[in-house]
């Protein structure tokens, strides 16, 4: 990482992770202030995964995500304003306030949810892959899901079909060790998740999900494989969420010691330390980054506050398409 291009790229990665962290911290604060309601699932601790994977994707690729998708939306290029306004339930939100925190969608960045039924996004991602295959498009679909989805039948059905039909889909399993409060070893007879994919003849790999460079490298390799072979790939990113599952979680199922231990591996702190150590970052630059991020988040909050509400007269719109969009 000694040449300037690499050094700028490293700072870019840190910047992206900081954007996610600060957005999520602000979201938690706004939840407590009752500006954001419903369920709110934070990505704090897992930033290296979304950032690392996003580096490997092209703008024309599609993304199918879960209810813990703020980070993915942000790093794929959706504006923090549109994200924040959606969480506020405002008209300026990406889905006019009809989706909320768990259901972000976006045409420009090809984000197909924000899917809040665990495992439910996998078949949709495979279908997007099938459409690309049938239309001979060069793009791919990235599908992110937690390790909890591995227990769902749709995971197994999708692994099988994606290989059988050779679909250009990157399956990213964000293994944060807990499906809500159920530890992986309490729900899976086989805890090496790459073996599950491998049993369907899918190429797979596992990577340290707390290391953004490692995730980026593994995702890039996976994406090259998919583009060259026109076949799916399963990438397990081993990570950890520092916050509760949602805002309603007293965390009875894991010890404070365990959380503290993982926090030693905080993807932002460790990466920042590495950049300092290698002389790629100094306090002044870091302060500048933080200020930039703080301004972006403040602007997003101001936008959300000022955004109008969707009129109640429009309640029943978007049940069927308005003919003009057909």
């Amino acid at each position, binding site marked *: 990482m000694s040449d300037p291009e690499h050094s700028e790229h490293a700072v870019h990665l840190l910047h992206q992770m900081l954007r996610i962290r600060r957005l999520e911290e602000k979201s938690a604060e706004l939840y407590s202030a009752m500006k954001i309601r419903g369920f709110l699932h934070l990505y704090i601790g897992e930033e290296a995964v979304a950032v690392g994977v996003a580096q490997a994707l092209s703008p024309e690729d599609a993304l199918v995500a879960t209810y813990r998708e703020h980070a993915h939306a942000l790093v794929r290029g959706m504006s923090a304003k549109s994200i924040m306004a959606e969480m506020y339930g405002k008209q300026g939100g990406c*889905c006019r306030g009809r989706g909320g925190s768990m259901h972000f969608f976006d*045409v420009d960045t090809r984000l197909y949810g924000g899917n809040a039924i665990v495992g439910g996004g996998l078949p949709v991602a495979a279908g997007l892959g099938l*459409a690309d295959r049938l239309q001979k498009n060069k793009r791919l679909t990235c599908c992110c899901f937690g390790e909890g989805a591995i227990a769902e*039948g749709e995971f197994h*059905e999708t692994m099988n079909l994606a290989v059988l039909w050779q679909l250009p889909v990157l399956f990213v399993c964000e293994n944060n060790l807990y499906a809500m409060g159920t530890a992986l070893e309490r729900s899976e007879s086989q805890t090496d998740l790459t073996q599950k994919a491998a049993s369907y003849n899918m190429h797979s790999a596992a990577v340290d999900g707390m290391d953004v460079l490692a995730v980026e490298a593994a995702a890039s390799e996976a994406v090259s494989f998919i583009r060259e072979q026109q076949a799916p790939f399963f990438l397990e990113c081993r990570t950890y969420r520092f916050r509760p599952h949602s805002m309603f979680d007293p965390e009875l199922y894991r010890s404070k010691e365990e959380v503290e231990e993982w926090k030693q591996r905080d993807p932002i702190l460790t990466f920042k330390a590495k950049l300092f150590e290698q002389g790629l970052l100094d306090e002044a630059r870091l302060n500048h980054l933080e200020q930039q991020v703080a301004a972006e988040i403040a602007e997003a909050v101001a936008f959300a506050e000022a955004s109008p509400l969707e009129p109640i007269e429009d309640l029943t719109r978007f049940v069927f398409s308005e003919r003009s969009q057909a």
Partner: protein
Amino acid sequence: MSTATQQQSSYREAVRAGLHEALQKDSRVFLMGEDVGAYGGCFACSKGLLEEFGPERVRDTPLSESTFTGMGIGAALGGMRPIVEIMTVNFSLLALDQIVNNAATYLHMSGGLFNVPLVIRMATGGGKQLAAQHSHSLEGWYAHIPGLKVLAPATLEDARGMLLTALEDPDPVLIFEASVLYPMEGELTAVATPVTIDKAKVIRQGRDLSIISYGASLYKGLEAAEQLSTEGIEAEVIDLRSLRPLDDATFIGSVAKTRRAIIVDEGWRSGSLAAEISARIMEQAFYELDAPVERICSAEVPMPYAAHLEQAALPQVKTIIEAARRMVG
């Protein structure tokens, strides 16, 4: 009106003709489901299509209802016009998550950004001694869901034409083909004419009561009407065609004229489509009625295998006639 050339066809062949035309005229259309290819379709509706259109467009799937239905949603989002075939409505319960949580919600959840132009076909209904896991009529459940369009073609023209119209619709459309109708023979125009998918149709004009029905039950209503006619009771028979949205205007208009309504619905009575129609008549035509609305539905048991029990569970012509006599007499 010039009469197009008529040809003999079965309902099954009409479905196949619709599939054939859809595949031929739009390269975005493909068919996927269990045994739609090499087997020719569980009910032989896609016989020969694999040979003609190849395995990319006529796709045999593993027994993974939820996933191939969800893949239909994804493919629709990705620019294709998929037709997903699910063998029977009972099996579609394995795909409820995708149909109800995804296909029906994406447009609204995304604030209008993503519509899902997906067509799902499945067989429904009893009468073939297939017992309690292959015979139910659950289309009324689907008709409960905002975001879905639910069709029940009863005629050959609709069996062919509704599929073609559904494929032009920007939103998810479910088509329920009554499995007892597949062998039904009749006449069909050589060239498909476009059909609506949001209007009910008066199939037989009448004066004394309205028999409101759809799918296989429609023919029981028509038979009852013929017999009632010999007794001097003239029944109007309405084919609902679309179960969601319901075409209130057509059946309310009929009831306003005849002042009596019998709803024939193969679903179970409790919480049924018949209950919904009855409620709408009460709401919109209460003061026009000369008698309480009658409902002829399936008996509230899982469908039994033995023929005499199954027939006893299903709506019957005799029961419709008895209800009509009660109301008019």
